[in-house]
């Protein structure tokens, strides 16, 4: 399928986003849009390894945390937070390599278990290490301007989130039309046949996973600069990994627009849960999220967008 319709859709979203960023004044709405975009980025990053590569990650929060902590560390050491983008990305990619190198050439569950184990290790490490703030985390000092990557209004943050979302979507469009994209698809379709045409599973998946981690890290940097407070529960907790997986699963694993759709559903759902049950901590949100993941897994494993794409393909008579 050509990229053109996707590029038009992305362009439309960017235009709408910019209008909102410059036109709207209500902080609540801008906050919602920022959160939505950030979750879409996180969902897409998860999608690269769990959807396109087919290896489900249950610890994706740690890559988000890499960026957030990198940002906090840069700022508290007097460096510009823009450095956190490469620093966080490299750290995240390194963690991805450690997790993926032993496991991405084996059956899927080895990898998934490894993501849980590494996530637990990283969370424990951050919680107990002094220079990482231990359990208290970091409060970022207030600053202003593009160099400090901090702004008094929410508009510029939305613009940055929009830029990140656009970049990630463009990268995914490119992935689908690249050798790596084809190879990942082939690996999911038929493992033996893929090897017979020279596809190196571990290498392909490691590359996808490293990029996935880097993308999540970028979202983490923005988050830190937005909320100005990070600690292990807000950036490294299992709950965040669950949210990310939910977005990816509901939207549709392995699809271009799945994460965006999933993020939309999640944001609406989270708001509804908060209104009805008064916020997380009592477990009601987990009941709903868990039930949704179970239903999707049992009935519509390819999520919202996956099911739609499947229906379109069938209609087009590709099966004729």
């Amino acid at each position: 399928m050509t990229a053109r319709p996707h590029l038009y859709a992305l362009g439309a979203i960017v235009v709408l986003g910019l209008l909102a960023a410059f036109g709207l004044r209500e902080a609540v709405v801008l906050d919602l849009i920022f959160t939505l975009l950030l979750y879409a980025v996180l969902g897409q990053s998860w999608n690269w390894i769990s959807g396109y590569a087919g290896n489900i990650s249950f610890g994706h929060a740690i890559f988000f945390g890499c960026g957030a902590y990198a940002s906090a560390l840069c700022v508290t050491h007097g460096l510009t937070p823009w450095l956190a983008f490469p620093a966080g990305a490299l750290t995240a990619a390194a963690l991805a390599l450690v997790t993926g190198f032993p496991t991405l050439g084996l059956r899927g569950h080895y990898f998934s278990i490894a993501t849980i184990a590494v996530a637990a290790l990283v969370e424990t490490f951050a919680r107990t290490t002094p220079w990482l703030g231990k359990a208290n985390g970091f409060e970022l000092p207030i600053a202003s301007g593009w160099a400090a990557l901090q702004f008094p209004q929410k508009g510029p943050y939305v613009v940055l989130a929009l830029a990140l979302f656009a970049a990630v979507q463009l990268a995914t469009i490119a992935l689908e039309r690249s050798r790596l994209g084809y190879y990942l698809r082939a690996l999911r379709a038929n493992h033996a046949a893929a090897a017979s045409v020279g596809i190196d599973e571990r290498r392909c998946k490691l590359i996808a996973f490293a990029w996935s981690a880097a993308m999540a890290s970028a979202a983490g940097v923005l988050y830190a600069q937005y909320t100005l407070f990070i600690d292990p529960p807000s950036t490294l907790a299992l709950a965040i990994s669950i949210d990310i997986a939910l977005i990816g699963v509901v939207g549709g694993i392995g699809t271009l627009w799945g994460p965006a759709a999933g993020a939309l559903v999640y944001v609406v759902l989270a708001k509804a849960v908060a209104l009805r049950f008064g916020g997380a901590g009592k477990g009601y949100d987990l009941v709903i999220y868990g039930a949704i993941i179970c239903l999707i897994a049992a009935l519509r494993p390819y999520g919202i967008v996956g099911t739609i794409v499947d229906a379109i393909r069938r209609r087009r008579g590709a099966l004729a």
Partner: protein
Amino acid sequence: MSEPLLQVRGLAKRFGSLRALDGVDLDVAEGSLTGLIGPNGAGKSTAFACIAGAEKPSAGSVCFRGREIAGTAYHRVAALGIGRTYQLVQTFADMTVLEAVTTGALLRRPRLRDAVAHAQEVLAFVGLAEKRYRLGRALTIADKKRLEVARALATEPALLLLDEVMAGLTPAECAEAVELLRRILARGVTVLMVEHVMEVLMPIAEHVVVIAAGKTIFSGSAAGAVRDPAVIAAYLGSPLEHSEIAERTP
């Protein structure tokens, strides 16, 4: 006389205490079509798997283009110049025909545009061009096999390994397959095929290697194979029945 493209010596493979291969020797001359035959349980599939890199031999050597390749990681074999098909066809069910062959072409042509162009050419060559947008799962068995050959050809192999490609084909489909084989040879690709369907293989194979009980028992022309007493004994056990095959062999 130039070096054979593929030279197998003393190939042995044990699965626990079972000796599947116990000394297989095999030569494949460049540009030829060599048949690998033998009675059921002789070890043809195991030998094939060892040559293709899917199994690591317990002993022996597999020399391709003068280089030892036994024990190479399976996914590196294609890059060395060996393509293969599977006895039980392994289709990319949800990919279109063009996408599947493009996946093969990407090995030597990393840029998608070049790979697609090459894939189109290969599809035209094997005769699947009109079906290029069909999903893999929607093809007939003969077309699935054809697709698998196209996918392997797209990796631009010097040696094409075919595993019982004629199995399950009607006589008309077999004839088409033979015609495709001739065109593949004309393109300069060497072919080694494991085959059970004798009537098809014997007329076209320039060279035949017979395996029985894990060992090579004959290597020579097809005509020589049907008259060789060791081959007859391995297959049939009775000198009377072999005459039917002998009649079909030039």
